[in-house]
């Protein structure tokens, strides 16, 4: 066997690996959800391997306690959006890499059309709620995703197929649902985040990141089911580091799982949420008497049971803080939220722009009328399609 002389190129060593199709890997579109400890490791490896057009999504900013577990961050990044700092560090590591960032909430501020445009999503999240939201988005979009998770001495990486097989929600126990519900008050308002930083080191995050990228390469090189020796959809690798123990295990599908819902076909229109009202969309679809389903509960106001004061407001219910129960009129903590899950032409919100009521660019909305429609706004998502200030500019005041 004769090896070709070294080209001196950045990826020369990689190109010597049999089956390593660098051009194919470089063309892949990957969304990395979460730029914390695991996300940092994943993004570092993707940059060093030259994999993908990467979109980094995280709503948080860099803090001092992130530095010991985040190889991409420096002290000068403290206070900066994690997504931006991570994407810029990726480009510094490997200038050939296409890395974009979006500093916003995965659940409410990132349109499903962005997820739908991806070849793969890598979940590097730190909460149950965010994983449930990402799982639902990937299942609706039909995009496979990898879930990375760590405990002090434990790493798990799970491959979830986009359109079939068990999903993350299939594995939710009653106890986990109860713990999830603790994050919300009776009216659905979000309780204060009381979770403390968890004890961990960069070691388990690094192991998780390496396994995630190894599986990502296997999926991207192997087609829909992934390479035959990679994790198959519905399988996870579990690694215990003290004492060492590892295994590949199969998840079970729950036939009645409510997350198993592929949103297809999708009609794409170029109008952006900022320039379109619900009524205009209903008319456009020739469904003037139809209902626009938002996919989340829209908080339309708070009503005080003590003094009767009402305050109108418009924002996703689950993003609204529990402190809204405090009534500024009478001082009692006796206000309840009023919310809707859909809008028709009679709704007060029907004449407001969709952006005003919290619909992000590239959102996919359902319209139920004489038939069911699924419409993606803002056109097809292309890299560089997300404006860094888009989230701020579409938030409604108050």
């Amino acid at each position, binding site marked *: 066997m004769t090896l070709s002389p070294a080209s001196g190129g950045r990826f020369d060593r990689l190109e010597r690996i049999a089956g390593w199709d660098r051009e194919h890997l470089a063309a892949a579109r990957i969304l990395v959800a979460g730029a914390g400890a695991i996300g940092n490791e994943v993004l570092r490896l993707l940059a060093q391997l030259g994999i993908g057009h990467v979109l980094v999504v995280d709503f*948080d900013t860099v803090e001092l306690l992130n530095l010991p577990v985040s190889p991409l961050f420096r002290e000068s990044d403290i206070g900066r959006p994690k997504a931006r700092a991570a994407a810029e560090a990726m480009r510094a590591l490997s200038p050939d890499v296409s890395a974009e960032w979006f500093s916003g909430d995965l659940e409410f501020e990132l349109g499903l059309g962005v997820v739908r445009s991806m070849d793969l999503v890598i979940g590097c999240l730190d909460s149950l709620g965010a994983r449930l939201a990402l799982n639902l988005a990937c299942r609706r979009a039909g995009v496979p995703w990898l879930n990375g998770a760590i405990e002090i001495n434990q790493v798990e990486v799970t491959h979830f197929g986009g359109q079939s097989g068990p999903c993350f929600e299939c594995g939710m*126990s009653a106890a986990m649902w109860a713990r999830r519900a603790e994050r919300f008050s009776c009216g659905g308002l979000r309780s204060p985040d009381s979770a403390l930083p968890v004890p961990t080191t960069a070691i388990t995050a690094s192991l998780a990141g390496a396994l995630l990228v190894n599986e990502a390469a296997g999926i991207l090189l192997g087609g829909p089911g992934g390479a035959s020796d990679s994790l198959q959809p519905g399988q996870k690798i579990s690694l215990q580091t003290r004492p060492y123990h590892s295994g590949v295990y199969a998840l079970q599908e729950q036939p009645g799982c409510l997350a198993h819902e592929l949103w297809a076909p999708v009609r794409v229109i170029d109008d952006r949420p900022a320039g379109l009202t619900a009524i205009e969309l209903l008319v456009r679809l020739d469904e003037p008497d139809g209902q626009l389903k938002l996919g989340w509960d829209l908080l339309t106001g708070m009503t005080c049971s003590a003094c009767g004061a009402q305050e109108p407001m418009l924002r996703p219910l689950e993003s609204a803080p529990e402190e809204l129960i405090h009534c500024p009129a009478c001082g009692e903590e006796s206000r309840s939220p009023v919310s809707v899950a859909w809008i028709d032409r009679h709704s007060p919100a029907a004449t407001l722009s969709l952006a005003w009521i919290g619909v992000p660019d590239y959102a996919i909305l359902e319209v139920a009328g004489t038939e069911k429609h699924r419409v993606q706004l803002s056109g097809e998502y292309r890299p560089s399609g997300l404006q860094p200030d888009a989230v701020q500019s579409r938030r409604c005041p108050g």
Partner: protein
Amino acid sequence: MPNNDPSRVTIILQTADRTRKAEITVPRTMQVSSLISASTRRWFLSAGVDYQVTNLATGMCLNTSDSLSTDKVADGDVLMLQPFPTHGANRG
């Protein structure tokens, strides 16, 4: 101990870190969630943590809402109890 009662199943239950291990005989109709509750109480495992059970004999993760018989747990199977990790690094 051999188990001659067809309504019961004898299994080995252990934690992933190998600090706890026991051979137990329980009803085949026992729910996986009940097995988790009983073992976490008995073994004083951390509260406030979600647990999962994997059958090392079959490589299957057990559904917490299923019974042992539904998940085809057989005599002699080794079940591993471990936390269900949901952390990244910053928050639970």
